[in-house]
């Protein structure tokens, strides 16, 4: 019996998921939750009401007494919101295999810390001290998990990917579909250029350094497409060795977390417009969740007047570049690399004929929810003029959905820190780290040239 045999529990023979994917994959649960919230919000709006009572967020404050007064007069709204989140997340995560008795106390901790971080971000001096909520959430989470340590069972509530996917579906409701159609092709063009260059740079640097081709491809996809998710997708498609994926995960995490702190402030130092900065972050961050933390931070800088443009421009440009431009192509990358692995690289004792159907199997389904949410809100608000839209739709429909999205993102950013235990990551070694770094540096430079020079006018005019 090998060490894998002894390390992993025995399972019943797994059956193909097929339609069961609709309730056994978190992408679909993010769609059900996100679209469910959008539809409920619309039903209220269509009947002359709004979900804004439930979508409460901390108000701007300058003294602790103001903050205290806000919570004293709104505590029932926070309790109701907490119960609503807890109910829908418990249903979803229980279906995904988590134990409610572990998830519930974990989410209590997550929500309470999130309230504190959100409130801190509303302090009128927060910007002076760079207390942007995404960065504060990340630092607090990293400190709790790496300095103090947390029980492993608490991870049941720290579901980074589930929260970010739910937030992205909600984000779709705040992004006009016409904008996706207008800006999407440029995002796809820019992202395709940078993805191919980054993959080839990491792959050939890895091969030159003597890495196995499967590991080099796994690292390359992690840098070029969608971080850890791309790394495990490609590892499976090419039949990587069991240690390859953990190595790629370690390298991607270290780079992605460093970039959360570097990219927003580098963009600010370069005086990049919010839309341009968002596009650069979308081109050069490696994982969706980490990138949203960086893009939201840059958006916060814009909302405080530290950079030109608006918060929405930074987040929208990032989303178009990362989600539409890069994420959706992971299935094609997997299919092509599976063909290369089975026809050009060494023949192995295991394998299978590459199937084009994996383009669909591996498709990040939450993107469907993002597009449908955008279509729904665009369609139901099509009859409003600009003035009526700003007076009625924004405060009663789009605004509350945006506030709930912000909560989902804070849950995600905090969960990144709470689940990243540096001591437990696999040892990557110098060669994989060096190979990835070659591609990351090229990516950052080419991404900046494309965002700030070649397509600068496009990103500056986004959602203006």
């Amino acid at each position: 019996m090998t060490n894998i045999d002894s390390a992993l529990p025995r399972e019943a023979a797994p059956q193909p998921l097929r339609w069961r994917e609709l309730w056994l994959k978190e992408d679909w649960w993010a769609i059900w939750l996100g679209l469910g919230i959008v539809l409920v919000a619309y039903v209220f709006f269509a009947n002359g009401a709004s979900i804004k009572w439930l979508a409460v967020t901390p108000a701007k404050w300058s003294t602790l007494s103001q903050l205290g007064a806000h919570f004293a007069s709104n505590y029932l709204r926070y309790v109701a919101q907490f119960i609503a989140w807890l109910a829908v997340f418990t249903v979803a995560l229980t279906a995904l295999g988590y134990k409610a008795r572990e998830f519930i106390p974990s989410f209590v901790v997550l929500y309470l810390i999130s309230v504190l971080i959100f409130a801190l971000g509303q302090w009128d001096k927060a910007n002076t001290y760079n207390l942007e909520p995404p960065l504060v959430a990340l630092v607090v989470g990293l400190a709790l998990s790496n300095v103090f340590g947390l029980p492993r069972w608490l991870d049941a509530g720290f579901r980074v990917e589930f929260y970010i996917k739910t937030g992205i579906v909600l984000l779709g409701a705040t992004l006009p579909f016409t904008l996706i159609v207008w800006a999407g092709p440029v995002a796809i063009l820019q992202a395709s250029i940078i993805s191919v260059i980054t993959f080839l740079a990491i792959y050939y640097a890895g091969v030159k350094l003597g890495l196995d081709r499967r590991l080099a491809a796994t690292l390359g996809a992690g840098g070029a497409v969608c971080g850890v998710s791309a790394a495990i997708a490609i590892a499976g498609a090419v039949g990587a060795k069991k240690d390859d994926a953990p190595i790629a995960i370690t390298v991607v995490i270290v780079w992605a977390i460093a970039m959360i702190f570097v990219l927003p402030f580098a963009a600010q130092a370069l005086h990049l417009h919010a839309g341009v900065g968002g596009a650069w972050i979308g081109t050069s961050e490696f994982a969706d969740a980490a990138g949203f933390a960086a893009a939201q931070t840059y958006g916060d800088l814009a909302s405080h007047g530290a950079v030109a443009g608006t918060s929405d421009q930074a987040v929208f440009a990032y989303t178009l570049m990362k989600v539409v431009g890069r994420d959706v192509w992971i299935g094609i990358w997997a299919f092509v690399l599976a063909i290369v692995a089975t026809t050009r690289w060494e023949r192995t004792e295991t394998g299978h004929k590459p199937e084009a159907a994996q383009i669909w199997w591996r498709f990040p389904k939450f993107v469907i929810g993002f597009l449908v949410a955008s279509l729904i809100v665009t369609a139901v608000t099509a009859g409003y003029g600009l003035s009526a839209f700003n007076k009625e739709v924004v405060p009663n429909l789009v605004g509350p959905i945006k506030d709930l999205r912000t909560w989902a993102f804070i849950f995600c950013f905090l969960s990144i820190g709470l689940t990243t235990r540096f001591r437990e990551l696999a040892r990557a070694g110098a060669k994989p780290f060096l190979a990835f770094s070659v591609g990351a540096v090229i990516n950052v430079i080419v991404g900046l040239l494309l965002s700030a020079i070649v397509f600068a006018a496009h990103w500056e005019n986004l959602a203006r």
Partner: protein
Amino acid sequence: MAETAITKGQRRGVCAQCMHFRNDPAALEAAFPGLASLSSARGSVRADDGLCARHERYLSARASCAEFHAR
């Protein structure tokens, strides 16, 4: 055409049905440190991939080999 290890395996069954194959999401997240920090074993992109204990590889559930053993 000469029969290869792969085609022999395809006659017998795929990894999803093999005793050496593990693709439970919780077990994969435990086996891959950091996977849940910026991704998840429950996402669509992973499909049904899992670990083969016999060959120590991370494989598609539809892969196969000559050493297939039904559960």
